């Protein structure tokens, strides 16, 4: 009898030894009389940490009665989303506040009981001032679950010097036909391609279908990937590469590769279309183009929109937090208030989600982006802002984006192993059976 007791005892001891490593707790220092509440924040973008730290400082100044300490963890992109998925799945370990990238967001709204908190009570009071298309991206059944940092307006970045060399006026480009015609002149006069197209990611293709009112999924999450507009647009891109010969596949496959940055920095292409937030990449990774690049509205399709809201990161609150109400108030002040919105521009170089921020004098102050692109950035943006709608982020969205990146764009634009019709149809059929 006693022997078995001893075995049991040693078992318990061993278990205790193994498990004691898991329970470490962090303590917070007391400041003043009121103990600050610690909130945990996960992000995959170092820049967002700086933004949130600034927001905490503002919050603590405005609300001395309920101070906050924000404990931020910056993880790699994939790792953070995986960790969050597992934490929500297992019911423990999730942070109070978390950044979720738009193409992953649908994963967290699956099922009948999402692990995220509904934010309607802080969103609705400022609804008329927000660019609501950007809120719909993180909504399900009329409930808002995330708040974005930016609008992500799709714009065209032109290389002034190359256009002057070719004698083409940038401001004459209004439609895609103009763009292609100008491209031919650029190629002829300078020997350099008009633009580059992404073949392993979706930033060249997706905004164009969105500007024509199409999408990957319909309003109710049904698959519309293989519709006529999408087919025609993909054909247009393919023609730019191989028929009109005004474009080349982006070196490295996409506009975030080291190869592309190094190549583009030498002024090797006359233009590129990317969302507004891509400005940061120019400033950071292509310093030699400073003063050479200008931002203009996208060329338009007949009857199409002037821009599209692309990309994004929704900041959400998890249901596992102990201070959900406080986290919500803080998040609203940080990202939904006018001051907060202005800070997304001044700190991060993003186009703010509050339209009343756009006309604020603070927005025209000089910063590293105006130094780089000139002072008319916001005039360009104001001209297109009214046209920015939402994208349809149904449950199949993460899967659709993946297929778009690794199959459709690559096989049609790079490998040329499938026609636009074949590739779109194959992917659409696969999505429909899921």
């Amino acid at each position: 009898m006693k022997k078995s007791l001893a075995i049991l005892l040693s078992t318990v001891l061993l278990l205790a030894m193994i498990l004691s490593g898991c329970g470490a707790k962090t303590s917070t220092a007391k400041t003043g009389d009121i103990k600050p509440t610690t909130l945990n924040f996960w992000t995959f973008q170092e820049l967002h940490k700086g933004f949130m730290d600034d927001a905490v400082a503002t919050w603590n100044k405005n609300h001395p009665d309920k101070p906050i300490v924000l404990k931020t963890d910056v993880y790699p992109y994939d790792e953070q989303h995986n960790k969050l998925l597992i934490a929500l799945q297992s019911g423990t370990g999730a942070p109070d506040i978390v950044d979720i990238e738009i193409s992953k967001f649908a994963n967290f709204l699956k099922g009948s009981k999402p692990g995220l908190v509904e934010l309607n009570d802080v969103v609705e009071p400022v609804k008329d001032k927000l660019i609501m298309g950007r809120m719909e991206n993180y909504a399900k059944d009329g409930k808002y679950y995330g708040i974005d940092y930016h609008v992500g307006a799709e714009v065209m970045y032109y290389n002034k010097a190359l256009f002057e060399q070719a004698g083409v006026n940038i401001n004459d480009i209004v439609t895609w036909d103009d763009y292609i015609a100008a491209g031919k002149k650029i190629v002829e006069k300078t020997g350099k391609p008009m633009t580059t197209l992404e073949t392993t990611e979706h930033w060249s293709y997706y905004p164009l279908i969105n500007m024509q009112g199409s999408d990957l999924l319909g309003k109710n999450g049904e698959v519309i990937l293989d519709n006529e507009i999408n087919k025609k647009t993909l054909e247009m891109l393919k023609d730019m590469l191989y028929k009109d010969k005004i474009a080349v596949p982006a070196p490295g496959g996409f506009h975030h590769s080291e190869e592309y940055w190094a190549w583009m920095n030498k002024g090797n292409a006359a233009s590129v279309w990317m969302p507004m937030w891509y400005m940061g990449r120019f400033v950071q990774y292509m310093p030699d183009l400073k003063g050479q690049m200008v931002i203009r509205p996208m060329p338009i399709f007949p009857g199409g929109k002037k821009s599209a809201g692309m990309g994004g990161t929704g900041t959400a609150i998890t249901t596992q937090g102990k201070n959900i109400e406080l986290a919500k108030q803080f998040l609203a002040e940080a990202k939904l208030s006018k001051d907060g919105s202005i800070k997304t521009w001044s700190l991060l170089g993003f186009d703010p989600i509050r339209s009343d921020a756009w006309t604020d004098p603070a927005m025209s102050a000089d910063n590293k982006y105006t130094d780089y692109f000139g002072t008319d950035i916001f005039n360009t943006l104001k001209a297109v802002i009214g046209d920015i709608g939402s994208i349809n982020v149904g449950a199949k969205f993460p899967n659709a984006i993946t297929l778009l990146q690794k199959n459709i764009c690559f096989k049609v634009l790079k490998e040329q192993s499938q026609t636009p019709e074949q590739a779109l149809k194959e992917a659409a059929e696969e999505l429909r059976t899921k």
Partner: protein
Amino acid sequence: MADPSVIGLGKPFIRRSRLKQLFSSQKTAPYVFVLPFILSFLVFFLYPIVSTVIMSFQRIDGPGDITFIGLQNYKNLLNPHFFNAVWLTTRYTFWTILVLVPLPLVLSIFLNKKTTIGKNFFRSAFFMPALTSVIVAGLFFRLAFGEQQTTLVNSMLGVFGIKPTIWLQDADASMFVMVLLCTWRWMGVNIIYFLSGLQGIPEELYEAAAIDGASEFEQFLHITLPSLKPVIMYVVTISVYGGYSMFAESFALWNGPRSPGEIGMTIVNYIYQEGFNNNNLGFGSAIGIALFAIVMAVNLLQLFSSGFFKKEGT
């Protein structure tokens, strides 16, 4: 001997002796010593394995939102992505074995020779890559095999007048890069295995063969190879396992799980994409079980064909 003052110490004395008994008794001691392994096995291996099997029959939509869907996940396996992943991983495994058995074998024979100069230096130099992190090595390979004219590999090829190649967007070229990365990393480990096998072969055999007039190549064919058979079998077995479980190399080369046209999508990569990127943990589990079945089948086939299960001495 019955000193009354000792009687008071009787109890602790007995307890200590019981503990002593526990560790010295032939019946219990083995269990005590393997207990840490058993416990960690139960908690970190058996429990997840059982969970995976159960999850492979479920659709998991979120916390507390789980539906039992029978064999649906396994039926969904019959899709081009899975077949592509199996075929790609099989090719990868084949190439790694084709390179990582003969090459280290030959190198280890040279490293085992008394006459080789700088033996110890080469031994450690070959082993060094095994100590680096896959992610670091993968990142280095990704940049070295970049498509620009100025990247390491392309500029080296340029010396010989070969045009720059786009390595990581082509199925064959990227298979080459993956196998090269694997060879670079694991060659040293296999050399160690073969070296230890070589050192177990008695010197007398070679001497006797030499007296009988066998050439070096004949000695290799008739003494070295047969003696190394168990080691070769072991290396092939772990290489099959290693090849089929490849994930990090491809993840690092393409900066994530998505490679263009799925040219680097291994089975584990597919698990990762379905399980985590698409939040389909049930389906991910089913792929995992399928992977287990494939590796098991390949290994058994290989062990059967090499006569591992034959009774010895009959």
